[in-house]
């Protein structure tokens, strides 16, 4: 249970949050037409006669969009409805020439499922929590309006009109802005693993309608909720909740009542405001779309969908912890984004192969390199780094040299810097730039002998039981070797010599 509370004048309040996330389905063509879905094209060049609602045109669903919705449903462990149907949601607006959106109200394609948000004590999520998902249905997106290009007219671009969306409706299970943020991030991660949505919030591929209500702590009945539409980032979702909670509590405590309504978020002012024009927009007069027969999914199709699912974030995270021996934190960070785990897994496979060791033996080293060392080097180089040179092969070669003691951790960084600047081979850099540890016992022994000879008093103290002095000898040896001696070899030789 989250402990997010709002301190009002009359007592403590809690918040109940539900999210409807609209995720654009990754497909080449639109839900009911063959027009292209690529983002950013010239206006109205990706509009078919169907999308423009020309008379006599009939919709035929895109199999890929159906497949992606089913796979997404499976990824959230949801019930898949073998029978579903399309309905018309009627509304009149310039962004939708049909006058209705084809959606699925009565028989959605995906039923109840769930998703896990991980504990994050810093963010105020004290333990793992399951968030219920009510349903996923498939529907058409609308076009785009531009209001600022002409003094008296709005411009309409229908390129987005008819692109497939999944509307993913959560249960009202979230009780803090942090939980809502974690939910959106986790959902985005799952969608990107599955490949059913690119999750690009800047381009509007994912946007959320945020339902918020407040109640006194201890009350069991839900308060009246408001819905803030089209919120397009995790940060804004959290900001909307915070500002809406405050507004509702102040309103109720001043003797007012929350009105069930649609609101709009203004990021510049960080506040929501009522969309009065939508007052009767909820009267959608849904009815089954007579242009579309019911959708029946065959067992073969469902099996193919299930077989095509990749390892999902939770399973991967647990495997990283249990089989690769990574820390919870590392496993969490590495599995959050598709690109991150893909890079990690490639590098791990090559490094383990070069070393002839099982992946679990080198996973933590590779994880630390991928999460901290390598990004640190890239960052410090700034524009000087050419990321084309950041190949898994080059990084694996560096990790191998480090693992076998040929180079130190500091030298690994220096070598990687040169790799990123020049694309030269790590082994060649180590050889020609003198970036190698000396493991040659002869040279190290010579240095140690000189130090022992020069510090007779300390040798006596050490032998007399002052163990801490061992560090002094290590330091002196490393200094004499200009930091290039292999610490493991130095330790061993010192132990032998000091007895």
């Amino acid at each position, binding site marked *: 249970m989250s402990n997010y509370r709002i301190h009002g004048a009359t007592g403590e309040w809690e918040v109940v949050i539900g999210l409807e996330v609209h995720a654009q389905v990754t497909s080449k063509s639109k839900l009911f037409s063959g027009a292209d879905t690529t983002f950013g094209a010239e206006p109205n060049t990706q509009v078919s006669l169907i999308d423009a609602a020309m008379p006599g045109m009939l919709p*035929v669903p895109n199999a890929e969009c159906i497949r992606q919705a089913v796979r997404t449903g499976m990824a959230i462990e949801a019930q898949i409805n073998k029978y579903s149907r399309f309905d018309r949601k009627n509304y009149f607006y310039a962004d939708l020439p049909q006058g209705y959106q084809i959606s699925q109200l009565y028989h959605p394609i995906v039923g109840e499922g769930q998703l896990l948000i991980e504990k994050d004590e810093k963010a105020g999520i004290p333990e793992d929590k399951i968030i219920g998902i009510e349903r996923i249905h498939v529907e058409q997106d609308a076009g785009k309006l531009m209001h600022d290009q002409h003094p008296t007219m709005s411009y309409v671009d229908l390129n987005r009109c008819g692109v497939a969306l999944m509307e993913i409706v959560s249960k009202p299970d979230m009780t803090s802005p942090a939980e809502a943020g974690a939910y959106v991030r986790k959902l985005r991660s799952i969608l990107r693993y599955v490949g059913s949505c690119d999750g690009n919030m800047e381009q509007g591929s994912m946007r959320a309608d945020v339902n918020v209500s407040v109640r006194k702590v201890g009350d069991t009945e839900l308060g009246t909720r408001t819905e803030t539409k089209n919120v397009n980032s995790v940060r804004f979702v959290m900001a909307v909740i915070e500002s809406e909670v405050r507004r509702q509590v102040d309103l109720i405590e001043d003797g007012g009542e929350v009105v069930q309504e649609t609101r709009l978020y203004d990021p510049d002012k960080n506040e929501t405001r009522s969309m009065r024009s939508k007052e009767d927009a909820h009267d959608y007069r849904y009815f089954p779309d007579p242009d579309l027969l019911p959708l029946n999914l065959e067992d073969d199709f469902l099996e193919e969908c299930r077989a095509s699912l990749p390892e999902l974030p939770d399973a991967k995270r647990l495997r990283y912890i249990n089989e690769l021996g990574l820390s919870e934190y590392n496993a969490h960070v590495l599995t959050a984004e598709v690109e991150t785990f893909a890079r990690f897994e490639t590098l791990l496979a090559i490094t383990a192969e070069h070393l002839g060791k099982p992946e679990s033996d080198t996973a933590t080293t590779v994880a630390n390199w991928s999460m901290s060392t390598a990004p640190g080097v890239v960052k410090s180089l700034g524009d000087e780094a050419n990321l084309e040179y950041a190949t898994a092969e080059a990084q694996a070669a560096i990790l191998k040299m480090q693992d076998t003691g040929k180079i130190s951790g500091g030298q690994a960084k220096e070598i990687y810097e040169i790799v990123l600047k020049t694309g030269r081979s790590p082994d060649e850099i180590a050889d020609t730039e003198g970036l190698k540890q000396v493991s040659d016992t002869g040279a190290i022994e010579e240095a140690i002998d000189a130090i022992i000879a020069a510090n007779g008093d300390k040798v006596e103290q050490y032998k007399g039981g002052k163990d801490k002095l061992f560090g002094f000898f290590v330091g002196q040896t490393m200094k004499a070797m200009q930091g290039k001696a292999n610490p493991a070899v130095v330790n061993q030789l010192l132990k032998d010599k000091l007895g």
Partner: protein
Amino acid sequence: MSVDKATVAKIASLARIQMDDDALERMVPELNNILGWVEQLGEVDCTGVEPMTAVIPNTLRLRDDVVNADPKTGGDRRDDILANAPAAEHGFFGVPKVIE
């Protein structure tokens, strides 16, 4: 089930159809006539009968995900799309300003 004048006015407004008072008055009995006629269906006992959603014994056909496979249902035809638009500009439809 029947409708009154206020309901007809609401339906007209949702559909963005402008109707004067006379038209609304005329429409009330017309719609009620239709509703009464359809209501007769309620007299049929259909207990235990699955609701029928389509009159043909067929299932929904799906389309492969291919861009512009058929020019009739593909995009890339802006001139056609805008041909009847009264105020197209710079490739956009121009409509009376609608702003939140």
